[in-house]
């Protein structure tokens, strides 16, 4: 299946190929993003790592690190 991930920090959108029943955790692994550093939302709802994704889902990845 394919999931569309919009990364807020870089304002980049990327299409990610994932196996069926893949979760948020799988998506972040594929994108090499540490789950501790982001919030993931779908339809403006926050998802936890074990949440299953569906084909053609669009998710937003929001970095929580402010730095400085």
């Amino acid at each position, binding site marked *: 299946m394919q999931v569309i991930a919009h990364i807020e920090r870089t304002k980049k959108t990327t299409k990610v190929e994932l196996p069926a029943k893949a979760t948020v955790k799988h998506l972040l692994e594929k994108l090499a993003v*540490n789950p501790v550093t*982001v*919030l993931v939302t779908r339809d403006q*709802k926050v998802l936890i790592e074990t949440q299953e994704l569906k084909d053609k889902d669009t998710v937003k990845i929001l970095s929580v690190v402010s730095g*400085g």
Partner: protein
Amino acid sequence: MACKKCQTEPVYVLQNHAPLCKQHYLHYFEKKVLKTIRTYKMLEKGDILVSALSGGKDSMTCLYLLHQYCQKQGIPVKALAIDEGIEKYREQTLKDAATFCKTYKIPLTVLSFKKMFGFTLDSYLKDHKMNPCTACGISRRYLINRGARELGATKVATGHNLDDEAQTLLMNQFKGNISLSAKLGPMTGALMHKQFVRRIKPLYFMTEKEVALYAVLMEFPVTFVECPNAEGAFRLQLGEVLNTWEQKYPGTKQGIVNSFLEILPSLREQFKSTKQAIGTCESCGEPAAKTLCRTCELLEKIKVKKK
């Protein structure tokens, strides 16, 4: 997986693996912050509070919760923002800060480097080779303390979270500045100088991710932007390392801070003599460890007089 309290959709999983829905997460967060305020007796009747507000998620969450608490306790709350003059960054966060204060009817004062020191951080860095976070941190801390005091504050709150504290502790450790750690903790500024306003950190035990989640769920007007000067900063690099450890070994940051809190009384005792040595800046009258405070030392380099 469902919320352990009401079986609805979860938004967060606690370190003990308990999932929480939005409503129960907000309750968990607020209860923990309230416990921190009460445990450390951060505020008492008669206090006047100034909360430092950058317009980011941490300071906004901190101000919101303190405003709620102080309204019940009859403690006046004001917000203080510092405009360092960082292009393509501070303008937006100050706009967010103003929107937030207008919504909750909190008086907001903005002090700028430009007006107070005669330069912006951007212009200073253009002309001087210096770590931007050091120059910014020194001047910002100065203005927060002075601004809070001039607003009549007996306490000044900052949005420092667990990640910030763990990073600072490691930075001090790595740089061999352990005496600086004696000045950390949930409540600081006990140094005996009449110009110091005591600092409180109500978000001390909340991780950066927890604070971000709270701000998002509460729909605060926060733009998640990173300071352009943060790239390559030692703090940011250390934060990445800590987050890698946190992912592998959950509870790492909490462990660092808890261990520190156990030795903090001994550290403060050990560096007591340093505390007593706090004097007054010959140039501006603010607290200083040497003849000049660090802000005046900075200004001395460019020969600017504070207003």
